[in-house]
């Protein structure tokens, strides 16, 4: 099984986000970077699959120089090889252009599986894995909560539906699968892993040298802003029964937690 895991470097959730003066971007100096959360689950799923069925796991990232750290972390955790597509201006690419660049970089690798996190914590498109499936002629499944390899050519996946429902689906390989957070427990990078990482190769593609004809942005950023936090408190009054019924109603229809 030859598996590629797409991994993105995103600002840490706890990072201090400060906008640039013209509100077109965020100030990068104060950012602590980390691997996109669902991508770490995608990597873990790939590593578990490799451990069970053999094969190779390739960690692939597209972005500025510092993105290589994401690949290094993946190699330290057990990925075999890195594939870095360098692009200092990667934030300026819309998702279709990004998918086209990935297509060019990955098309000759003939992966059996491409795993990616469900969506990135920063731009949140949730489309890359699906676009790649189309462009590389692979079957696909999104929101995957579990995987099971059936044989060399077929895989079964558990997808999350709405309202707490799940669905098992069988796919032909090659397939591109987007992984939902929480389906496994991402491993800790051991020092031994970090030492071994230093001996693993990272192939570097310069995105400007990739034939990306047609990858012109169709989406342009207008303005960025930090949403205002609004705290709303509603007091429910009445008898305990009335309160319970109103609270239940709120939870089901307004907050939609059930």
């Amino acid at each position, binding site marked *: 099984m030859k598996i590629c895991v797409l991994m993105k470097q995103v600002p*840490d959730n*706890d*990072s*201090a986000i400060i906008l640039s003066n013209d509100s077109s971007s965020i100030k990068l100096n*104060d950012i*602590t970077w*980390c691997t996109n959360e669902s991508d770490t689950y995608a990597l873990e799923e790939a590593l578990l699959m490799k451990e069970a069925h053999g094969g190779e796991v390739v960690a692939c990232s597209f972005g500025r120089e510092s993105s290589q750290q994401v690949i290094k972390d993946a190699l330290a*955790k057990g990925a075999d090889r890195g594939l870095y597509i360098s692009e200092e201006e990667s934030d300026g690419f819309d998702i279709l252009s990004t998918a086209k660049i990935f297509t060019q970089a990955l098309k000759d690798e003939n992966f059996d599986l491409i795993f990616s996190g469900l969506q990135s914590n920063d731009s949140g498109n949730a489309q890359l894995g699906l676009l790649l499936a189309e462009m590389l002629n692979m079957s696909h499944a999104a929101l995957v909560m579990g995987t099971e390899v059936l044989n060399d050519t077929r895989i079964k996946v558990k997808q999350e539906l709405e309202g707490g429902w799940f669905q098992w689906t069988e796919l032909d390989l090659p397939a591109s699968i987007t992984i939902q957070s929480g389906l496994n*427990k991402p*491993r*800790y*990078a*051991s*020092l*031994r*892993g*970090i*030492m*071994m990482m*230093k*001996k693993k190769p990272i192939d570097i593609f310069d995105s400007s040298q990739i034939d990306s004809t047609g990858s012109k942005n169709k989406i342009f950023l207008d303005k960025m802003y930090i949403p205002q936090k609004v705290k709303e408190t509603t007091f429910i009054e009445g008898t305990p029964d009335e309160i319970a019924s109103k609270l239940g109603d709120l939870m089901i229809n307004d907050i939609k937690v059930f």
Partner: protein
Amino acid sequence: MTEMHHIPTVFYIFALVTILYTIYNFRRFFGIFSGKPESKLPKSFLTQLNHLFRYGLLQRKVFSNRFTYAGVMHFFLAWGFFILLFATTVDFLTARGILTKFLPALDTPWFAFINDLGGLMLILGLILAIFRRTSQKPEKLPNSSLSGRGNLLGDMGILIFLLLLAVGGFLSEAARLGADQPQFAAFSWIGYTLSKALSSETWIAIKPVIWWFHAITSLLFIAVFPMTKMFHAFVVFLNIAFTDQGKRGLLRPMHVSDLLSDPDADIENISLGVGNVMDFTWKQLLDSASCTECARCTTLCPAAQTGKPLSPMKIITDIRSALYNTDNGKSNDKLIGKLITETELWSCTTCGACMEICPVLIDHIPTFIDMRRHLVLSEGTPPEMAGESLEKTAQNGNPWGFPKSKRLKWAEDAGLDIPVFAEKKSADVLYWVGCAGSYDPRNQEVSKAMINIFKNAGIDFAVLGTEESCTGDSARRMGEEYIFETMALQNIEIFKKYSFNKIVTQCPHCYHTLTHEYQDFGANLEVVHHSEFLNELINTGKISLENNDEGSVTYHDACYLGRHNQIFDAPRSVIKKSRGRDSIIEMPRNLQNSFCCGAGGGNMWHEINEGDRININRFDEAIQTNAATIATACSFCLIMMDDAMKVQGKEQDVEVLDLAELVNSRLKIQI
């Protein structure tokens, strides 16, 4: 030359067989020579000689007011044994005509007297020990006795065996005195009294039987000695000789950065931490061989006392067990997961209670941490929640995972104007706020109090602000030497940029790490804990306090301030000066015997789901003093005690305060 005893030739044949068998039984012990080289060896010969006298011969640590019975028991056993060993050695030499000019003969009055005294002491000690094992049955004292030693006698068996030996000794003495009637027989007061029980003729008749009985039990004892609990009488002396008391508890640096930059490192086979018994240093193996299974460590261990699956003694004897089962030091058996479970290792708070009480100077904590290192650095399996805090430490420079850029937010929010080294470049005092002091809301109050005190006392100080990172204490104790070293090297680089005379910190964990552990990476820092600093400010009159003499205080000794760094008086002095001379009510477990809050050793960052919570246990002890205030001098203790107060719903009854808050509330001027 005095008359030589007549000893039958067949005895010498038995003796030869015995010695060969003893040597054979020693073979397991020789496994320690296959251990890794030791870096913590003592340097001063005289100090070691002193320690051998103090801890070996006088057994100073055996006597503890928490184990009085056992102390008295051991005194009789040990000194009875020493005297008899001396007597037997003298007898052995004089019987062969060696040094007879200088040595006493069997019936030299003083020699005969102490000889019998020794025997009596041994018998008394044995009776006390047998009574303890049969009637008192201390809960944690192991009864199986086979662990790691594998002799059929067991711990109880060896007591009975020694009793036979001692009684046999008196009987054969009585037989000799009864049969030979020597001139000074009465000085062998017990043997002499016994000899009067039978007629001289009877003694003559049964003397050979008694003699052989005693001879054979003696030889058997020597033969099985290395297989029994009594072996400690030999190994412990070796262990004391090679233990550097000053370095006990200190972790061995791994120098990970050297390892990472070494192109020839055999990554696949390199041992990171200890996964196999032969990954220990020979001194750590000697430690394990020294354990007498007295169970004092396990009796006092906070994890064991709250029902967690940790027994420090079990881990040490498991190591011995693995050592004794190796084939000439070759063993590929995994230690962790088989003999020792991961939960046992993660239950340790590194509080040091085990090491404080251990009579034979075993260095428990570094040994446990070495095994954690294996789990984290080699296997990549820290406890789940701990793994998160480790990743956050690496990422953001603090285990909470708050942004590094917000490290001074507590001061900004409080509207405090604090000098920062990045601008000031030089100051007398570097105030090390620490992660808790920077990010934990409860500890931020302590930091604010410290700032007010600094300003009040007119101290020339500054903080590192966003340039400060976690010292790496928790990471290191969780076995994450790589993150610890990264933090240490990073902080040391920052220290080099600025000029300051000393570091002041309110966190004993930071204090311990900066003082003792950064030395291994080239930083010799003068670090002062805030308890000492505040005490000095008060004593030198730099701050003056309004002493309202109100409210009693019970002081919770932090492990890393008290046991690990012997700072007991300064915090108490600060309390007395801010709350009155008689304000302190001590808890039953105080000073060296203090009970952990439960957060040390990385336990702040994960939960062992078995047993009770350690902080609740300690809080309940504090509340029983009826003191109005529980005072702490440690960032983690403050969190744990404050948390326990809320869990127990005692907010109305007691307040939990740090020393700095106590002092700050008594300052005449608030700035």
